Each structure stands twice: as structure tokens, then as C-alpha cells.
């Protein structure tokens, strides 16, 4: 991380003129000015909240849907193509439709983020269920587990590590979709901040916005990894 900042700083020294890269110091300064004078904290808070809610909704739907799709063959055959269809649709292309049908309120942005998070997570979950070792399912059924119990007591715990992966992926995607989501005429937010900076070609602000997004994502990811470590102690993890 420190190395990365040094690398950035070196690049900013080398690149000058038209292709100038704002230095870390210039970016930091832009961020400080942003926080003190333009209430950048509000943008940050709004975006973090949007991402959190979007991921929460997206994953909350993706987990059961992913499980159900993996579990019931007929449903899967019906819905799998639909999932890959909608998953592929670019959020930016959908923005005009979102604005028309969902308006420009918070729900529009949350819908875009949930949409992105959902489709990012659902495939990972779906595949992880398919990889559950049959022997555990058999053991559960032999003890009389109902469909729901099999699911909640065996499939879910077994796939918890993969669910975390799914959430991590969804989180990354949600952040990456933030600017698009805030194209739904958001008034504040990091995406809006970046868009504004780009409209007026204020490079240090642009960089500050981008770095803030990256850092927020890193923090969230770290938290998730820490939670995961605790929850999957039972797994033999080969990474040394």
C-alpha cells in the first residue's frame, strides 16, 4: 500500500504537461478542501450507505435465488438464461430506463446497485451449491432432514465460504457501479462528485474521488475478510 503511494508519487513526478498526473499531495489537498469546504463527507457517507444497502439487498435476494436455482432443476433450466441475460446488461445503458420507470430518487440508485450486486453474487452462489459434496446431503437426508432443513443446515453452512466470496465480488461490483448508479441524477455522492470534477476537468478532485472510492472499498473488504476468517474456521485453508 505504501509502495503503491510511492509509485504513484513517482509517476506524478515523471508525467507532466498535458498528461500530468496529480501528485498524492495534490490529491490529498483536493480531498482536504473537499472535506472542509464542500462537505465531501456527505458525498462519502451517501455513497457508502448506497453501496451497503445495494449490496445488502442484492445479496439478500441473490442467496436464496442462487440456492433455489441450484436446487430445483426445472427452475434452473428456465431462469439460468434469464440470469445471464440480465447480468450482462450494462448499467449505463439501463440508466435512461431507470429514470423513466423508477424516477431519480434514492430508489433508482439503490435499484441499480442492488441489480448489479444481485447478478454478481448469484452466479457464484449458484455454482458453489452445485459443488456441495453429495455425501453430506445424503447424510442429512438419512437423518430425516426436510428440503428446507437440508438447505438451511447443510447446503448453507457448507457454502458459507463461497457466499462470502459472492458478497466480496458483489461489493466490488457495487462500488464499480456507483458512478453509473449516481447518473440517475443524484445530487450528492462520490459518483456525482467525480462526474462534476470530470465535467469541469478538475483532475485533483477527480483523483480524490476515485481514491476515496477505492479506499472505502478496501475498508469494507477488509471487514468482510475478517468476518469470513472467523466463520469458516472449519475449512482447511491451503493458503500458507
Amino acid at each position, binding site marked *: 500500500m505504501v509502495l503503491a503511494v510511492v509509485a504513484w508519487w513517482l509517476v506524478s513526478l515523471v508525467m507532466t504537461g498535458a498528461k500530468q498526473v496529480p501528485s498524492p499531495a495534490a490529491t490529498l489537498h483536493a480531498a482536504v478542501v473537499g472535506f472542509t469546504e464542500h462537505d465531501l463527507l456527505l458525498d462519502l457517507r451517501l455513497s457508502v450507505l448506497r453501496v451497503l444497502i445495494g449490496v445488502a439487498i442484492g445479496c439478500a435476494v441473490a442467496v436464496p435465488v442462487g440456492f433455489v436455482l441450484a436446487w430445483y432443476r426445472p427452475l434452473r433450466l428456465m431462469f439460468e438464461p434469464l440470469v445471464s441475460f440480465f447480468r450482462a446488461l450494462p448499467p449505463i445503458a439501463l440508466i435512461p430506463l431507470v429514470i*423513466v420507470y423508477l424516477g431519480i430518487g434514492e430508489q433508482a440508485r439503490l435499484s441499480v446497485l442492488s441489480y448489479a450486486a444481485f447478478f454478481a453474487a448469484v452466479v457464484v452462489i449458484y455454482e458453489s451449491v452445485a459443488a456441495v459434496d453429495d455425501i453430506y446431503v445424503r447424510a442429512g437426508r438419512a437423518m430425516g432432514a426436510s428440503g428446507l432443513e437440508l438447505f438451511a443446515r447443510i447446503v448453507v453452512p457448507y457454502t458459507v465460504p463461497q457466499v462470502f466470496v459472492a458478497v466480496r465480488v458483489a461489493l466490488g461490483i457495487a462500488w464499480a457501479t456507483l458512478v453509473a448508479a449516481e447518473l440517475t441524477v443524484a445530487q450528492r455522492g462520490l459518483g456525482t462528485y467525480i462526474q462534476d470534477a470530470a*465535467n*469541469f476537468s478538475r483532475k485533483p478532485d477527480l483523483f480524490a474521488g476515485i481514491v476515496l472510492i477505492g479506499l472505502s472499498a478496501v475498508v469494507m473488504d477488509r471487514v468482510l475478510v475478517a468476518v469470513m476468517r472467523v466463520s469458516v474456521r472449519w475449512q482447511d485453508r491451503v493458503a500458507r
Partner: protein
Amino acid sequence: ACGALDEGSGDTKGTVKAKKGSTVVKVGYLHTIAVDDKLWLGQVAGYWAKQGLDLKLTKFDTGIAEAQALNAGSIDVAIMGGVTSNFPAQGQGKVFMLNSIENATAQIWVQPGSEITNVKQLKGKKVVTTTGTTADILLLRALTKAGVSRSDVTVVNAAMPDAVQAFNSGSVDAIVLWVPFDLRVKEADPGASMIASAGDYPDAAVGDGWVANNAWYAKHQATVKKIVAGWLQSNAAFRKDPSGSLQKVWKVAYSQDAKLSDLQHQVKYQTDYTNAEWLQRYENGQVLDVVGTAEKAFVALGGLPSFVEPKTFFDTSLFVDVAKQAS
């Protein structure tokens, strides 16, 4: 580039091919009639080819992307809209010619049945526009004149098509747009009404300009002169037969995108001059004033740190030279 990813030469049916050995100029443009009208007429009638130029055209969606590409040297020349007064002032490129003046293309519209009838009443309301554009300048001027502080209005940013959608869905009180998006607003609900246009504010006019990459400009004065010469021919042809010329341009460049009537509607809001009139305005400094006035708006909007004299980034001499020779 690799063959499979070839996007096609960019040559459009109906344009005159350049002669062998022509000077290649990479030109970026915005696909809006106030910006690319003379460009396309020149392609149709072969004015560029006649000058020994081979224009390689790249279409951009925003002036921002244009400025970035120009700066990075991906294109040599960009024809821009309102941002002609912004990015070159930041040292990003040299203006050498104006294409037209957009004096009334920007307009403020309010919802059907809205009680808002004038700009003053925008106070406390939600207004959507694309920040950093012609429309944003109009909003600034209108609010200033009405004595309303910009912070008293909720200004939200969106790309213009999205802004129109937002307006049409009733999510905002007003929209500051540029033509031909007024048509989209009226299509959705004929009851929407315009409460102000840039025509009402002399200082809200912007000049659309031809801007060259700094390094390229320093080395290719002769080519710039050829561009000016070609443009003068195209402009002359346009002034001679405005509707016929427009039809030619529509056919070659717009038939897929818009109706001819849209373009006819649109050109009403821009101002064009004959070559002689332009020359006069270059010589008496009026063109610099137009650019400077818009630049001040960008300063006020926070896009520019401070005001820079237009003559430092707008070199009028080449145009004057060529235009004098031609006349």
C-alpha cells in the same frame, strides 16, 4: 489496428474522397448541428479535399471527452461547443476559429401547469441540467440577473438525454437544456413551457470553436490555414443556400439520427455570419469578447481557477489572414 476490430474507415456514403497525398488531419466533433454543419457540408461538397486535406473524423458525445482526447494527442483538432471557452483557457488547446454562435440554443423549461413563470421563482426548486455546458451558463446568467443565488436552487447534474427523461418523468421542477432536446420535452408533454432562453441574455451566448492540440498547432500553421480556407468555402456555400445545405448535411450525417425538421428547428437558435461579417468580428475583437464572456461564466461556475485573456488561447490571426486573402 487489427483487421477484425476495424471500425470502418469512417467514410460515409456521399462524401468526397480525399486525393492521394493529402494532409491527414484527425478531427473530433460533436454530433450537433451548430458544431458539425460546416464540417459535413465540406465533406459533401469536397471543400476539404480541394484544400488537399483528408479529415479523419471521430464523433464524440461530450466536449469533455473531446478535450481529453485533444490534449492526449489522439486528435489534432476538435470542434467544440460551449467548452471552447473553458478547456483552452486551462491551456488545453488553441482556438483558431469559431464555427457559429449559439445564442439561443439553451433554454429553461418548466413542468406543464407549473406555477413557475419566471426565473426568480426557481428559488428553492430543483433544476436539472448538464453542468459545465451551454445550458449551465444560461442558468448562471439567468439566476444572476434575477437576483437568485445559485445555492438557493437545487441544481442536479445529468447527461442531457437523462436530464430530459428525469424532467419528463416529473421528478424535477425545471430543466435547462439545449436544442433539439426542447422537442423531446414537448413530445412527451406539449404542456411544458419555456420560461427563458439564452436569447434573452446577451452574455449567455457561447461560441462554438475549432480548437487545435497545442503541439500540433505549433507545427502545422499551414494546415490550419487550409482548414480555415476550406471552412470559408463551406460557410459561404451554407450562407448562399441555408436550407439546401442543411438538407445535404442531414442526408449524409443525420438521416439515421434525427428528422430533417429537427435540424431545421435547431438552426434557428444559432447565429451564423457571412465570411465578411465574421472577418469584421475577428478584426474588431468581438469574437474574443464572445469567448471571454462565456469564459467568465466558467470561472463563476468553478470550472476555471481564474480568468485568462482570450487572446492568449485564441489566435485570430490565421483566420484573418486567410479570410483577407480569399476576399
